[in-house]
């Protein structure tokens, strides 16, 4: 398909969508959505309710209608969805066709949902990501509790791969930490999964010097998971008693950050002549970033200074004795 034909097709599709969607939806369907997904119009059958803060219920008998608020967890952000890893999908690729019936039947609503492993596990296409090892790590993690699934952190309707190809590491760190904070900084969500007492993340980390710099510069999982070199991101979340608390785990020349946060950095991003130099594109970790050449040069100057002082002292003592 040539580019003009494709553009015209997209415009035609966009025009067609206005017939199906409610008037407000016309501005919500961006051309970019049609570029990545062949089911945008089909998906609108769901998103005209699940893409909104409220939805309309009509009673044909009385012709009365009311607006109801959509439960926040069931709202799908179109922009986030059509830029996510699952942006090409139709809603019914994962959800039952029976959801086309409204109100949804109870049998449909309690249907078992797909999990990551149902598509990604034991599949050569995804072999390089070792989803099976991730699953094993999750089973051993403290997150392995009732009703906790991959989706609690990785919303399939908005999940993006940030860390693997992060141009802006700060943005990737923020994105990753927000996955944790979504529950750990929101007690209402936290109580949906556990009866534990409320955690105040900032109070729990008040022992960290320069807390803000730490939270901005590293992900929660740097300290709260066990290092695993066979998978890209460790998923075995440790109990808080086993979390890293020794500063030198990161602040030393053999910093664990090189096995966690910075393991994704491309070879181009590495800087020769520095210890853990790849970190220096974005930050500076006291104790971890050194320049061996500068250290050698420093020792040379220090040695020459001490030698000069020793020689001068020797001459003074000799002169004193000869006098």
């Amino acid at each position: 398909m040539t580019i003009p034909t494709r553009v015209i097709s997209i415009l035609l599709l966009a025009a067609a969508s206005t017939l199906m969607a409610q008037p407000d939806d016309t501005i919500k369907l961006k051309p970019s959505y049609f570029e990545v997904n062949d089911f945008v119009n089909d998906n609108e059958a769901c998103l005209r309710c699940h893409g909104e803060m409220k939805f309309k219920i009509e009673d044909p008998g009385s012709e009365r209608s009311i607006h109801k608020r959509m439960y926040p967890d069931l709202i799908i952000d179109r922009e986030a969805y059509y830029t996510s890893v699952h942006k090409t999908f139709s809603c019914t690729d994962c959800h039952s066709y029976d959801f086309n019936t409204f109100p949804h039947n109870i049998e449909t609503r309690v249907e078992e949902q797909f999990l990551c492993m149902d598509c990604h596990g034991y599949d050569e296409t995804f072999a390089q990501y070792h989803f099976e090892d991730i699953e094993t790590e999750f089973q051993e993690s403290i997150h392995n509790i009732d009703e906790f699934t991959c989706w609690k952190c990785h919303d399939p309707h908005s999940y993006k791969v940030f860390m693997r190809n992060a141009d802006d590491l700060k943005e990737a760190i923020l994105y990753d930490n927000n996955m944790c904070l979504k529950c750990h900084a929101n007690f209402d969500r936290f109580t949906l999964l556990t009866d534990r007492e409320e955690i105040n993340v900032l109070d729990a980390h008040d022992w960290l010097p320069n807390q803000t710099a730490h939270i901005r510069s590293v992900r929660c999982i740097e300290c709260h998971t066990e290092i695993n070199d066979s998978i890209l991101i460790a998923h075995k979340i440790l109990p808080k008693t086993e979390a890293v608390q020794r500063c030198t785990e990161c602040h030393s020349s053999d910093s664990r950050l090189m096995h966690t946060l910075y393991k994704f950095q491309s070879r181009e991003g590495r800087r020769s002549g520095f210890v853990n130099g790849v970190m220096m594109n974005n930050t500076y970790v006291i104790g971890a970033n050194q320049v061996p050449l500068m250290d050698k040069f420093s020792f040379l100057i220090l040695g020459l200074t001490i030698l000069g002082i020793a020689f001068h002292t020797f001459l003074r003592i000799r002169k004193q004795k000869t006098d």
Partner: protein
Amino acid sequence: MATHRIYLYPVWIRIWHVINALSFLLLLFTGIGFHYASIDAGFIRFDVAVIIHNVSAIVLTFNYGLFVIGNLVSGNGKYYSSWKKDMGANLWTQLQFYIGGIFKKEAHPFPINKDRKFNPLQKISYVAVMYICMPLIIISGLGLLFPEIIVYQVLGISGLALTGFLHQIMGFVLSIFLLIHLYTCTLGDKPLTLFKSMLNGYHEEHE
């Protein structure tokens, strides 16, 4: 042999000097601890070093402010600010004394008096240390203490990393100065004469 005494180090300078020396030694010790931090073999606990380093740095910074203000309001500033045109020749003369004349018992080429507290080499090194290196190490240290004020990247390198390396380099330069400073302080009439001067305020010379 008569002893000639000049009151050169007023109380405020001596207090400043002892605070400066102690805080700098703590900063140096803990700074080396950071640089060679190791999971197994660090010579000081990292978290303890952080507290000592931060507190000492704040003390040193305020103390530096005392030094600058003191020099402005007292007459002490003149010892740093009066420069002569033949400074280069004077520096050479002083250097020649240290590498040759001192062993021949020659007289000091620039004897200390009320108007001249430092010889040319002392003056140039003290000015460089107090008005170039100290501001740089304090500013870079403040940057590391409050990293949010530092530019994120400069030419693709972390602004924090550049600040960190500047801080390390200044720390090293000042440490080398400290070694030389301590040694040259043994070059008085007797090895401990100049150290005593900094305690009692009087510069002593045998005539």
